[in-house]
């Protein structure tokens, strides 16, 4: 039970923050906090891939967009023309189509988001598998560039395709009804409910990931990170574990994209951009790589501030600065053990070097 204690702490924090916004009359913060939760979800997926398995991925935003665009595309189509086909009848029989009245009194029939959820997650898993099997054989720089290339492909396709709304993205995505009366959507009235839905999903995923990390798979992953050859020699099927983790990370990211799209009522091409993928990497790096709690905390704080527009014009620059400062001074992550000590050691090192250089200059 001990391993779940931090989960309980996070749950308590989630409730306290909601109460605080209520007391302070800052209910509108909940919108950004909800969105942060979804970004954190995608970052947690990357944390598993990068932190625990040691495989860098610069394509996480591609999977996020894959989830979001799939549902946005499927749930905004009008299925009226399909009426009468066997496929439609089956969907109807299962209650997976939603008829709706339009502004002009006509009716349109939309696909239920439950179907698009399944499609989105399966698509993401399939894409991650097809990409992962060949690409995860690569290491370091090659892997980084290959995943970045995948991200750019997704970005260019959504940006250049009419069906995906080009630069405008897709809008008018309906809410996602979990149970009657409770749906993932941007409705003002359900702001508090949506805040709890989002963070509940994060908590559930955390529990799953903690279990995964403390299982046979988790131990295999850590051995992989420590030294792939050694792990391989000890009989760990490194290739299989890497692909498995990559797929899990992609599915989490796609789930985040799916929920975010229903919450926001749309998605745009910037969600697929390389800059977004870099953000996820920054969050995981600052959180201390193999540290779910670090990713969770850093992810929620940075994303919340960014969404509130605190960084203004320097939004992207902040993430760049964070990366550079982190790697220079705290390579072990900001929440890692001994952060202060490493910082001191580094500082002394740098000062010594400066002093030495000065001596060289003086003594020629």
């Amino acid at each position: 039970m001990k391993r779940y204690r931090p989960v309980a702490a996070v749950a308590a924090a989630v409730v306290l923050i909601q109460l605080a916004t209520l007391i302070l009359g800052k209910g509108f913060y909940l919108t950004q906090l909800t969105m942060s939760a979804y970004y954190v979800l995608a970052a947690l997926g990357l944390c598993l891939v990068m932190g625990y398995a040691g495989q860098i991925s610069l394509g996480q935003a591609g999977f996020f967009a894959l989830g979001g665009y799939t549902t946005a595309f499927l749930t905004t189509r009008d299925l009226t023309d399909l009426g009468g086909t066997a496929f439609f009848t089956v969907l109807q029989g299962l209650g997976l189509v939603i008829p709706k009245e339009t502004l002009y009194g006509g009716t349109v029939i939309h696909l239920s988001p439950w179907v698009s959820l399944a499609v989105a997650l399966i698509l993401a898993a399939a894409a991650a598998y097809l990409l992962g099997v060949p690409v995860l054989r690569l290491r370091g720089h090659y892997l980084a560039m290959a995943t970045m290339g995948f991200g750019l492909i997704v970005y260019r396709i959504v940006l250049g395709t009419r069906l995906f709304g080009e630069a405008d993205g897709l809008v008018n995505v309906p809410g996602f009804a979990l149970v009657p009366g409770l749906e993932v959507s941007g409705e003002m009235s359900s702001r508090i409910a949506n805040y709890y839905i989002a963070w509940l999903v994060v908590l559930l995923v955390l529990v799953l990931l903690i279990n995964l990390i403390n299982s046979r798979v988790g131990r295999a992953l850590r051995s992989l990170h420590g030294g792939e050859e050694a792990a391989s020699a000890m009989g760990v099927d490194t290739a299989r574990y890497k692909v498995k983790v990559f797929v899990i990370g992609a599915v989490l990211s796609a789930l985040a994209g799916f929920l975010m799209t229903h919450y926001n009522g749309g998605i745009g091409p910037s969600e697929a951009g390389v800059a977004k993928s870099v953000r996820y990497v920054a969050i995981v790096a600052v959180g201390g790589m193999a540290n779910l709690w670090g990713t969770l905390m850093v992810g929620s704080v940075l994303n919340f501030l960014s969404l509130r527009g605190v960084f203004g014009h320097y939004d992207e620059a902040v993430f760049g600065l964070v990366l550079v400062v982190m790697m220079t001074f705290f390579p072990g992550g900001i929440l890692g053990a001994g952060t202060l000590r490493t910082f001191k050691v580094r500082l002394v090192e740098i000062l010594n070097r400066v002093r030495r250089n000065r001596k060289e200059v003086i003594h020629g």
Partner: protein
Amino acid sequence: MGSGQLLQYLFAGITVGSIYAFVAVGYNIIYSATGIINFAQGEFVMLGGMLAYSFSRFMPLGIAVVLAVLLTAAFGGLMELVFIRRMKSGSVLGMIVITIGLSLLIREGALAVWDEQIRALRFFSGSEISSLNILGARISPQVLWVLGTTLAVTAGLFLFLKFTLTGQALRACSENRRAAKLCGIRTERMVSLAFLVSAGIGALGGCVVSPLTQTHYAMGTDLALKGFTVAILGGLGNPLSAVAAGLLLGIIESFSISLLPMAYKDVISMVILLVILVVKPGGLFGSSRAAALREY
């Protein structure tokens, strides 16, 4: 497609391909000396174009270009001194993260200085409407400047690496850093030099193509990826075949427009990148066994 049109596409491809070659050569020089892939490589091209644009408003074009190249080269060297050298533990993940962070910072810095506008340097000779007729294709004289510069840089680099002592020292570093150090080569200096030279070459490329392809603060990411594709196609660690691969990719992209919508142009290069990485990571001209032995 008539022969004139064919040539037109070919020249367009060569122009774009040259810039990829510039980036790829930069990757190669740094990779050779350090084993690092510098994700900020595309930003040097952007910086070169932008700086030259700003300087050219106060001084003759030639001086502006030289100044821009020198400044960018100095910046590249400084980047190595201040950030890269510190990362002595040298984990690949750390190197990737720090160069990505730096590229983001450079890009956002450029946004603050030059805003979102697209800038273009003056044409080196003639103007945007002057054109030469070559076998039925009409090309801008700037294309000749681009080609000439590419050839000059390639030849210069070849001579430098082959015949000068410094160039040989740089090559020794790439063969085996420790052995080079034991022979009395100051490897740290070679690393700084590699950053300096590759930033300068990138900036020069950014200047010569700026009149044709324009300069934008966010152009670096795409260039970094395309340049990397080219570096891999040519075989990492081999700057000369990178030039051939650059022209090849440029020509493929240029002809792809006649088959697929313009918007998917980048998709083609990225698919090529993924395929080559998976099928033949040693490059088109390299041996895959040598590639397997490299550290990356």
